[in-house]
């Protein structure tokens, strides 16, 4: 509960901070401080030091898993603020509001990590989405930004409609919005589940697939990520997406059975399709930003494995994945924002002009590619391991790793551009503090790549 309340309050604080000062540096720092408070509050609840007691009437349920995810998400946001804060305030005149919206999104995140019923789930999703529509369009003069925001909004609300229809059908079949009841229901056989409930869940599933941009509901992703201001793309592609997955998992780990055996077939198809679309299409992209958009689809394909094999290994995995993927992507975007030319050629020879950026960027890319000694490796490792542990099909895993190999192909194109191609990549001026924080992030990624349990250790007590 701490997280939800605090994030809301922080949001309000940010709104008002905009009134009292126009100095963007101050606003940024306030945001960082507020975020630290938020993290502290959440940790208080995680380690049950102090918790705001609210009788949620079973609409919310706080698990270690959810709280721990909050921590990860907030820390990732902190990193994001530190790396890209300067660029956030640079997007437009509404620095304070942007931060406020981000905090509201975080509120949505913390709801999604703790909802215990479709009602809160729905509200959480909406709180998560609506600010994003706005952030996407934050760069008001930029037609691309406008277009992205409108596309995002239209398709988003459409998927909301589908989601609601799903919820309605589930409600009709089960007579409740809770997660538990239908689980009990399904305990005594699929036959009782009838048809409306599964179809409702199917619609729910589809709308969630849309949110996490799984094929064939991924179409908004490239355009929106491409059009939105890069800083906000970074936020959407990482924390928000991870939250989406958490919601997805928490929603379906209890209900998957209702879909019957078909469930275990539908998901592989979606996974393979997502991997295919994401990886294959990314290969040909010339703009790094767009390539990252597709790569995020590909990564989503991998995260879906956690859903496919919903065991505790998968849960740990998705947390690690969220952390690794968010950190790496945030880092890459932070560098991307500094580039004057987003195209691959824009990176040519970065190693000479900005060795530190090139090096750290390489670490991030390696992590995304899942090369050992980076956190990304263990993230993927957990996913595959969880599938194999469930006795899932080897062939699916093999397909996955083959696509991982393809992903290496386009990630390494960037590395090639930075190191092996001639040219002098032009960047905006770069503070040494920025470099330092990049190095720190890279170090964290490598550390997690050697001792992943350092992160997951929290779960084991």
């Amino acid at each position, binding site marked *: 509960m701490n997280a939800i309340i605090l994030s809301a309050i922080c949001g309000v604080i940010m709104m008002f901070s905009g009134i009292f000062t126009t100095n963007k540096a101050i606003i940024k720092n306030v945001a960082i401080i507020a975020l630290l408070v938020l993290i502290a509050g959440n940790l208080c609840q995680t380690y049950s030091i102090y918790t705001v007691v609210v009788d949620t009437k079973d609409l919310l349920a706080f698990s270690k898993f959810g709280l721990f995810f909050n921590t990860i998400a907030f820390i990732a946001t902190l990193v994001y603020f530190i790396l890209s804060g300067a660029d956030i305030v640079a997007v437009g005149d509404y620095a304070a509001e942007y931060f406020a919206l981000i905090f509201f999104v975080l509120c949505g995140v913390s709801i999604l990590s703790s909802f215990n019923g479709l009602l809160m789930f729905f509200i959480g999703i909406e709180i998560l989405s609506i600010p994003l529509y706005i952030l996407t369009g934050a760069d008001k003069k930029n037609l691309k930004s406008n277009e992205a925001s409108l*596309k995002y909004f*239209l*398709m988003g609300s*459409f998927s909301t409609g*589908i989601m609601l229809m799903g919820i309605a059908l589930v409600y009709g079949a089960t007579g409740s919005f809770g997660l538990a009841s239908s689980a009990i229901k399904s305990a005594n056989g699929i036959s009782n589940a009838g*048809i409306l409930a*599964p*179809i409702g869940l*199917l*619609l729910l599933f*589809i709308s969630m697939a*849309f949110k996490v941009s799984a094929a*064939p*509901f991924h*179409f*908004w992703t*490239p*355009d929106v990520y491409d059009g939105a201001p890069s800083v906000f793309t970074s936020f959407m592609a990482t924390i928000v997406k991870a939250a989406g997955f958490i919601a997805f998992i928490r929603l379906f780990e209890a209900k998957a059975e209702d879909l*019957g*055996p*078909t469930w*275990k*077939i*539908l998901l*592989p*198809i979606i996974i393979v399709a997502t991997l295919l*679309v994401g990886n*294959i*299409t*990314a*290969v*040909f*992209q010339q703009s790094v930003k767009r390539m990252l958009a597709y790569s995020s689809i590909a990564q989503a394909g991998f995260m879906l494995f956690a859903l496919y094999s919903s065991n505790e290994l998968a849960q740990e995995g998705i947390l690690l994945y969220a952390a690794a993927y968010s950190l790496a992507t945030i880092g890459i975007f932070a560098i991307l924002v500094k580039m004057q030319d987003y195209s691959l050629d824009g990176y040519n020879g970065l190693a000479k002009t900005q060795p530190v950026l090139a090096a750290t960027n390489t670490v991030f890319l390696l992590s995304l590619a899942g090369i050992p000694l980076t956190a990304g490796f263990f993230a993927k490792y957990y996913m595959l391991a969880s599938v194999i542990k469930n006795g899932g*099909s080897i*062939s*699916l895993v093999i397909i996955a790793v083959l696509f991982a190999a*393809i992903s290496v*192909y386009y990630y390494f194109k960037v590395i090639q551009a930075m190191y092996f191609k001639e040219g002098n990549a032009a960047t905006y001026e770069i503070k040494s503090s920025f470099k330092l924080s990049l190095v720190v992030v890279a170090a964290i990624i490598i550390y997690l790549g050697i001792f992943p349990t350092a992160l997951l250790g929290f779960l084991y007590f």
Partner: protein
Amino acid sequence: MQTIKILLAFIVLWPLVGFLVNGLGRNFRSKKMTALYGCGQILGSFLASIYVFFLVKENGSQVATYFDFINVGTLKIPMSFQIDQLSSLFILIITGVGFLIHVYSTSYMRDEEPKHYARYFAYLNLFIFSMLLLVLGANYVIMFIGWEGVGLCSYLLIGFWFKNDNYNYAAKKAFIMNRIGDLGFLLAVFYLINKLGTVTYIDVFARVGELSSQDITIITALLFVGAMGKSAQLPLYTWLPDAMAGPTPVSALIHAATMVTAGIYMIARSNILYTMAPGTQGFIAIIGLATALFAATIALKQNDIKKVLAYSTVSQLGYMFLGLGVGAYTGAVFHVMTHAFFKALLFLGAGSVIHAMHHEQDIRKMGGLKKFMPITNITFLLGCLAIAGVPPFSGFFSKDEILAAAFEKNPILYYLGVAGALMTTFYMFRLYAMTFLGKFRGTNDQEHHLHESPSAITIPLIILAILATVGGFIGIPEVFATNSHWLEQWLAPIFEGSKALVEVHAVNHSQELLMMGVVTGLVLITIMFTWNKFSKYEEKNIEETGFVKVLENKWYVDELYDAIIVKPLDGLAVFFKNIFEKSGIDGTVNGVGRLVNYSSRQLRLVQSGQVGNYILIMVLSIIVIIFIWINDATIFRFISKIF
């Protein structure tokens, strides 16, 4: 025991030391030093060998083991030498003849600049080393080491003048052809290891009974393949004539006296195996005889002095194998020895001639050298008589023994053998006559420079001539005197195993005498005929035709091999390199990459940017999913087969 161990080590290693010293010091040692050292080393080994010879005479065969060369599980291959009647005889020949040829070389190669001079002697020493390893080795692997070692040295020495690419090709050809044989040898060794788990002679011969006759046949056949390569038998003989590219003393030492007889040594060494494999023996006899005749026919029309000798070598080797094939092991070894004498003599004589003629090798450009170089003339004539098998020259005894044994086996072999002998007589005396008789056909300035060679050349000639003349008397056949065949008695321990297996009933004396007489008569007639046919040989360059042309072109064998083996392999290689590798395998690999790129280009078109299309696709996929789902999920079932 200890003494013999040290002695053998000395005999083998001393030339190696020579090789190292001459090889490493080649840049800063005078020719004199080099020559002295090169010869000295061999002399040392030679003297030691004589001592060893007498040691063996006293206390028979011995094995000296030094260390484990390979010791894996049950397989033990010690680095050990076996000295017995056979090997002691061979090391005498090798070091003895080797020494003479070293001495000869000191003068023959004197025009070389010091470092190449040293290189030459280094190689020569290395050769002696490997050859000794070959004959002294107490198991087939050690023998194989020497076997390949001599191949290496012959490669190095044939290509000694490496600036000339033809020589290099000849060297390469020699090595590769030998390798073909070596493969056979190796496989035989594997077979032995596979069946008996040992390669040491003593064990193998002791446990030969454990082998099925088929095994023995295979092993012996494979070993013989090795011999074919090394001893230039059909069909692997073509390298030997080309090997004449090397310096003449090398031809004398390696390609006449020693290396090429390794095959005979090997078979004599494993005579028991062969005696137990009559099939292989027959095969050997036929190959040997065929080679003898075939080479002889070619020799008839050769005009290069060394080529003639080369083919005669091949043919003589054929005789030796004939001997082995018909079970006359002693005879074969005997012929090896005599052949070593007279063929070395002939080569050295030829070398002396070539030297005098300023590296002119075509006998049509020679003639009448008698008066210019008397010693060479005499010695060469003796050599010819020896090889022609005129009594009492050495060749007579050895060849006669083989032919007698052949008659024993099958008269046809005998008659063909005799025919070969007559051909030999013919081409040798053709050679002699064209070279030394008649009048000189070369250019004038050649004529002016004609002179007898220096003593370093003539002395070895004389010594060898003496040996070639009297060498035969160590094997006087029963016909003339009882128990006079010293060599047979000497080698008896080696071949007693075989003797025990097949009872030899000698030809009755009267018939043998008759045969001898007839053959000798024929030979003499041939000699006279050729003598006065070619002593007044006039150079007339008319294009030969028909069969003669075929002979001149050596039956077109090289061309044949080129057509049926080299060309196809070449083509295959080119196909693999340019088509199969590039388009085939690598093509597929790159094809995958291209496929990804292509599908990427196609797939991105779906991202049309139209919200309408996006939503449409979404709706359609929703419909599809639900539709399939409610229709009893048959399609999903199908897919579930995949996952």
